[in-house]
């Protein structure tokens, strides 16, 4: 049974997995040849649908279904999302630095299937090495005739442009990304219209994540059904999980979902360093509600099981906290992030995030007030009414509601600690 797809080449050939020559002699661009010569565009889309691959950028939307929504107007665009800025996430960085041709082959096949002749990769500005490695791969691909006019003797032509961001997390949200790529402020757009109908330059556009597209060559070679057979039913395929924080073996681990969190943290992650106890972990990046050992160690690592337990796998960032962690400080750090990254369009997000940050800060500084817990929950309720999961939205995009996750997590799981910190605040402040 296949248990690794994306990291096979880089593991086997650490010194040159990013080069065209290594890519070619490990089967690279054979999937493209197959797609161009033996498959119709509809066949390719059918294989992607059959794979049941759910988008790896965070929302988990089935890739083939999204492709099916692409409107017929011309021109159409493919935009690959390499903005990867969710704290805790670093798997797209590895995929682009270590196997850029795998992504590029995925882009070429996808563009062919979708009728795209100009594709873009939006790379966060803080990833210059990813950009350099991809640029080199693009140049190699042009020289070898995998990009440009009449690719491999067909009538299919494709250009790929790499575009660097300017240090704004919100540009990972697909419509903010499109605005940014158009040379505008990275402010999310109201949906609908969805990008598949009106995206880049108001033309039909597919936005997919780096990891999602990197799977396409394997799916063409082995078939969608083979991909769907890997892992639990609604979490098909492999997933790159970025594990960080207080963990013995931090890093990206390409896994097949379906194991328990206990196995993930203690077997794959090697457990907590220095014999310390596990206190909490974030299963899917800064936006996700936290899990705790008493409740969730035997929960299954899958998109649906995590969602059923009130959180999300998101882009696959697992952040582990040991018993020494000051959870209020950790929550503050995450809320501060969202306050800093709010684009400012929606009042509940713009005002609420900074307000939550300020309340957490005063608690940390020893100036907390007894009513602060209710106050934080009240502010949170204004951002995301009912504090439900998945969150209700009063805002244009989910960034605002994401800020609520650390608040509900600490008030739910660590209330005594929070109360003790506030109680200790009374009297002279040290």
């Amino acid at each position, binding site marked *: 049974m296949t248990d690794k797809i994306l990291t096979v080449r*880089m593991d086997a050939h*650490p010194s*040159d*997995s*990013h080069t065209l020559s290594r890519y070619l002699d490990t089967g690279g661009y054979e999937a493209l040849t197959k797609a161009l010569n033996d498959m119709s565009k509809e066949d390719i889309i059918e294989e992607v649908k059959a794979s049941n691959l759910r988008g790896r950028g965070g929302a988990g939307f089935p890739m083939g279904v999204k492709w099916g929504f692409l409107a017929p107007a011309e*021109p159409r665009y493919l935009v690959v999302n390499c903005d*990867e*800025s969710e*704290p*805790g*996430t*670093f798997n*797209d*960085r*590895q995929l682009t630095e*270590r196997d850029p041709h795998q992504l590029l082959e995925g882009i070429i096949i996808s563009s062919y299937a979708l009728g795209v002749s100009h594709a873009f990769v939006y790379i966060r*500005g*803080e990833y*210059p*090495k990813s950009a*350099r*490695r991809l*640029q*080199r791969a693009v140049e190699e691909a042009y020289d070898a005739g995998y990009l440009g006019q009449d690719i491999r003797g067909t009538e299919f032509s494709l250009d*790929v*442009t*790499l*575009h*660097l*961001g*300017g*240090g*704004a*997390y919100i540009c990972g949200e697909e419509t903010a990304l499109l605005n*940014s*790529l*158009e*040379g*505008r*402020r*990275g402010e999310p757009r109201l949906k609908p219209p969805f990008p598949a109908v009106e995206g880049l*330059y108001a033309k039909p556009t597919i936005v997919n994540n780096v990891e999602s597209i990197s799977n396409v060559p394997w799916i063409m070679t082995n078939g969608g059904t083979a991909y769907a057979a890997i892992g639990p039913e609604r979490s098909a395929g492999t997933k790159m999980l*970025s594990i*960080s*924080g*207080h963990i013995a073996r*931090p*890093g*990206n681990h390409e896994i097949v979902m379906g194991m328990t969190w206990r196995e993930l943290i203690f077997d794959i992650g090697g457990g907590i360093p220095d014999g310390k106890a596990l206190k909490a972990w*974030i299963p899917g990046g*800064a936006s996700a509600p936290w899990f705790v050992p008493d409740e969730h160690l035997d929960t299954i690592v899958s998109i649906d099981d995590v969602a059923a337990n009130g959180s999300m796998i998101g882009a696959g*960032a697992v*952040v582990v906290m040991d018993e020494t*962690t000051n959870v209020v400080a*950790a929550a503050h*750090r*995450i809320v501060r*992030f969202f306050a*800093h990254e709010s*684009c400012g369009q929606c009042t509940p997000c713009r005002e609420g995030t900074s307000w939550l940050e300020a309340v957490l800060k005063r608690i940390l500084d020893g100036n907390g007030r007894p009513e602060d817990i209710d106050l934080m929950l009240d502010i949170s309720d204004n951002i995301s009414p009912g504090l439900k999961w998945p969150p209700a939205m009063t805002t244009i995009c989910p960034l605002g509601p994401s800020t609520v996750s650390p608040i509900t997590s600490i008030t739910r799981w660590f209330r005594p600690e929070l109360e003790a910190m506030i109680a200790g605040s009374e009297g002279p402040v040290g």
Partner: protein
Amino acid sequence: MMSVISHWSLENQERARSILASYPVKRSALMPLLYVASLEHEYASLEAMCEVAELIDITPVQVQSVATFYTMFKREKIGDYLISVCTSISCHLNGADEVLAAVEEASGVASGETTDDGSVSVEHVECIGACGGAPAVQVNYELIEGITLDKAEALIDWLRDTKPTVLLADEMQQLFGGQRSFDWGSTEPQGATRPVPAFGPYGSTNGSARGGR
């Protein structure tokens, strides 16, 4: 249109030309051009923004409105070496606040400031995608993972003493780094010469990379 940048270096004029040719709609070239203009003017100055505006046929105010949205366009002159210390969650859990304090102490300036001699600027930033190698810092956006307090001090001394013209991530990682997020594979010949992302088509990289398409 191109005459507005006739005082730019020939290399940067060529970069601007190929950037403009890479997009079906020229306004898309705004951010790439602003990076190149920041190389010419040392930062995203008013003059830089006016030139970019003319290149893509929009008003300077429109360029400014975009530039102010993004933290990586510096609207004041900064040091030759921009040290960005990640203080987001995973780095925070692994001692990032102490690393920031050590960098501030060794450089003599607080986050957000530049040393008097114009050599070093310090900033604290949100996650830079190196959480598996926390705590992490970047110098002119080239990465060092798994830095320690001692090594953070040594890094500042090294920058001041050797004044490297090109910052190579592999070299800095070797000298000052530790735990990495993943195996970096083979070394990378290119690095940063200025506090602008070292990306050949529009960044401050050594060695010649061809333009974008």
